[in-house]
């Protein structure tokens, strides 16, 4: 069997690794924008190879795929989906695992996603306001209060600004930041994209515990994978700017220590309903991964923050030890609409931890973070029972260099989060920039202390949303302006 994987990051390295273990003994061909040493190794070991081209160019990718003539193609990242790579290959008759460009709008356009959720009254949706006009957007944010500012288009996870505005004595500072930030966002980020009318999305801000629910679907059946929690803050103690994800934890089983069965089921229900209406609206069948970036909030309980039309990165890496199912078989069945009979097996006895090692400068100064020579002592990492997946690293003339993003993801599984976390920490020293450039990672991901803090936050949030539900406040929000009257917002 021949498989093509399109993409170049840690996510694709994890996918390719899992595919390579299949009993179908596939030859794996990777189509990347640069030479990722991890992907290259997996491909070559399987008897396939890695080739490079512009993976956002549908014609170029098709030429590369034609050279292989694979049984199934997996599109890893969202941008090739947005650029019609899945459409092109499907049009040529290939079995493709990856959302079409129209279905991937669920990730690409945050306005489309919110509109869809509101139009079909799907639970877990937040109030929002979308802008096409820059001056209107700026006018609005100056008085917006406690909100989140997002670019209207998915921009590689960049550009989201969460500004808690609860202290009246600090609100003038925050208003200034919102306005300045909006200007910067529109000129620096949104100006790159001509494929969307909306510029800006303002959402009500919620607090709680985040988790990712990734699901595989053939358009008929939805297979939820175990929940994973990512850690977006760059530094320990949840400090620092938002990144693409500094690491993630998964388990035990399909839950997390701070999410209960009922909340899991509600989350699956939300994704199922979105999948259904999305297919109705687009009139296409969804084949690939649909992921809900969720948050357990005091306002609504399980709440949708974003949707992804692909696996989360680094979230999917958690499964390399704990998913006890032949992923290639699942993907192959999904690509041909035969998912109904598939059951996922998960190692109930294991939990998994992923940690990214990053060059200083990531995420906000990638220019400084780029081009540093990297060495990785893979043997020592494996001696600790861990695996290394390559992310933002490219192989040039036999040497590895940083691309400015996360360098590698270190993955480990075991019986206990704290122990697994410590084992991963020991492996970090085996990843180095040889020019002395600083690297960083999060020591605290998976530790008992951090998980306890999440459990406590979730308890507070659960208490609050349960109260709201008991008073019927999960579907209405009541506001009263003294002297003017009562305003009711309908969330039903």
């Amino acid at each position: 069997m021949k498989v093509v994987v399109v993409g170049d990051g840690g996510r694709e390295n994890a996918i390719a690794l899992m595919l390579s273990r299949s009993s179908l003994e596939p030859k794996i061909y990777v189509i990347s924008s640069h030479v990722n040493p991890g992907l290259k190794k997996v491909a070559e070991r399987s008897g396939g190879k890695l080739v490079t081209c512009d993976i956002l160019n549908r014609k170029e990718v098709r030429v590369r795929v034609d050279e292989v003539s694979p049984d199934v193609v997996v599109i890893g990242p969202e941008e090739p989906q947005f650029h019609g790579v899945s459409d092109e290959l499907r049009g040529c008759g290939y079995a493709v695992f990856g959302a079409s460009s129209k279905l991937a709008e669920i990730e690409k356009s945050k306005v489309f996603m919110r509109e869809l959720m509101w139009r079909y009254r799907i639970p877990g949706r937040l109030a929002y306001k979308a802008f096409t006009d820059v001056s209107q957007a700026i006018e609005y944010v100056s008085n917006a209060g406690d909100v989140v500012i997002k670019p209207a288009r998915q921009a590689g996870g960049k550009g989201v600004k969460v500004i808690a505005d609860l202290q009246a004595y600090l609100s003038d500072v925050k208003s200034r930041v919102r306005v300045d930030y909006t200007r910067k966002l529109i000129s620096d980020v949104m100006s790159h994209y001509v494929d969307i009318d909306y510029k800006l999305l303002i959402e009500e801000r919620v607090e709680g515990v985040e988790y990712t629910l990734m699901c595989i679907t053939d358009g008929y059946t939805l297979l939820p994978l175990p929940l994973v929690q990512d850690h977006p803050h760059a530094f320990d103690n949840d400090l620092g700017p938002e990144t693409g994800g500094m690491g993630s934890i998964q388990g035990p089983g399909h839950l997390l220590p701070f999410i209960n069965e009922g909340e899991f089921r509600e989350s699956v229900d939300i994704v199922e309903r979105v999948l259904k209406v999305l297919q109705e609206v687009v009139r296409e069948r969804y084949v690939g991964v649909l992921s809900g970036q969720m948050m357990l909030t005091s306002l609504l309980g399980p709440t949708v923050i974003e949707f992804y039309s692909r696996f989360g990165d680094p979230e999917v890496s958690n499964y390399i030890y704990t998913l006890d199912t032949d992923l290639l078989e699942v993907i192959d069945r999904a690509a041909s609409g035969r998912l109904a009979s598939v059951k996922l097996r998960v190692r109930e006895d294991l939990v998994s931890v992923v940690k990214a090692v990053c060059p200083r400068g990531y995420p906000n100064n990638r220019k400084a973070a780029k081009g540093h020579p990297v060495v990785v002592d893979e043997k020592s990492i494996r001696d600790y029972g861990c695996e290394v997946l390559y992310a933002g690293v490219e192989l040039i003339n036999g040497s590895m260099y940083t691309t400015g993003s996360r360098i590698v993801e270190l993955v480990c599984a075991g019986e206990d989060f704290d122990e697994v976390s410590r084992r991963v920490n020991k492996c970090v020293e085996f990843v180095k920039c040889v020019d002395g450039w600083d690297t960083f990672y999060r020591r605290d991901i998976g530790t008992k202390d951090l998980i306890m803090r999440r459990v406590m936050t979730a308890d507070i949030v659960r208490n609050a949303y349960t109260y709201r539900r008991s008073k019927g406040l999960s579907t209405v929000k009541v506001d009263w302006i003294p002297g003017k009257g009562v305003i009711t917002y309908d969330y039903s």
Partner: protein
Amino acid sequence: MGGLVGVVAFDELWSVSKFMYYGLLASHNRGDNYIVVLSNGRDLKSVGGDITHLLLNKDSLDQLEGYVGIGGVYSQVDRLDGKYTHLSDNGYELSLLVDGYVDGSVLDIGRRLLKLVNLGYKLVEAFVEVIKGVRGVYSLLLINNKSEVIAYRSVPGLTPLHLGGYGFDLALIATESVPINILGGELRSAVKPGEYVYISPDLVTVGEVPTDGVVNHAICAFEYIYMARHDSVLDGIDVYSIRKSLGEELGRRFKYDVDVVVGVPETAIPYALGFAKVLGKDLEYGFISTGVKVRTAIKGDPLERLIGIQLKLNPVRYVFSGRRVAIVDDSLVRGLTVKSVIQILRNKLGVKEVHVVIGSPKLITNCPYGKEIPPKDELLTANLSDELAVKYVEADSITWLSVDEVSKVFSSSGVNLCTGCFLGGCLVRGWS
């Protein structure tokens, strides 16, 4: 004694001067004077003075621009020279702010740091290299004009230091946890003794300054007893719960019969709550203050102290007239507060009995580390016998806690306590 505050924005869009202002305001309980240093990534600017003036004219601080800042409050008896230094060399600027006692000079630390930085050391490496040879009992904040900040709690750990965050945008540092909350942030951890936190817009790291030999870590008992705000959480322990438990302990030890319990505002209120609960007596709101709140014990000038006491303790007649009263205070330093109150209660309000109840052991020595304990010859319990103390303040009795009883209250908290001023020798050995 003082308090430190630091704010680092990960995004240059922020201006942190207003955050510094409210951070200092939330540290006001630790000192009346302030200093602030801000960095805009190019140079350092500083401003300082009396907090009361800052309250009236906050523009002076508002006009300073910067997305990274450090600051501190310090009391009148403390002095800023020796605690703060600013150095500049060839376009590189560095400021240091220390709370506590440093063996050596802050200026000297700054000079050595600058020298290593000039030799090409990274700031953290230079810091560890210099600080590992600096003994003392202190917390420190460092800022440079590259927008790098280091917060450090020295090995003995006598003064707390806390780290917090606000969303994806700010890292917050403060002696107590309260300023972090007031700034809309979330308390994330207590900096451990001997630990430093390096914070810059593109990197945060936590590390330890290596030490030679064994050092006892202990946090100052007076932080929990008097210094910190009731709403603070120090090293993971709720200050309020400690004060209430100490009050309960006092209630179990108290031998007299009274009609009502009154706490001296504001520090002693949780003590009085615990005390009254054990006695099963009413806790009354017995004193009303006039004007701005002041921490009388940390005033340097005796006349100012007396003015402070008189203004904050006007008694409520209904509570005291003809009653047997237990007056609860957190500590007995010079006895001035209790003495002046009792005089009014007896002579003007006709109180029947006044029993003084103190939520801490007898103070018998000053603190060698600059904590706000006056010199030994100014401590009532270091100079007067129990009998004489009762006569001096004109009480019917005085009850103190023993060091053992205090230790008992802390025993389940996992916190090591320095009770040197009650025992006559400091528990923080091997370092000072």
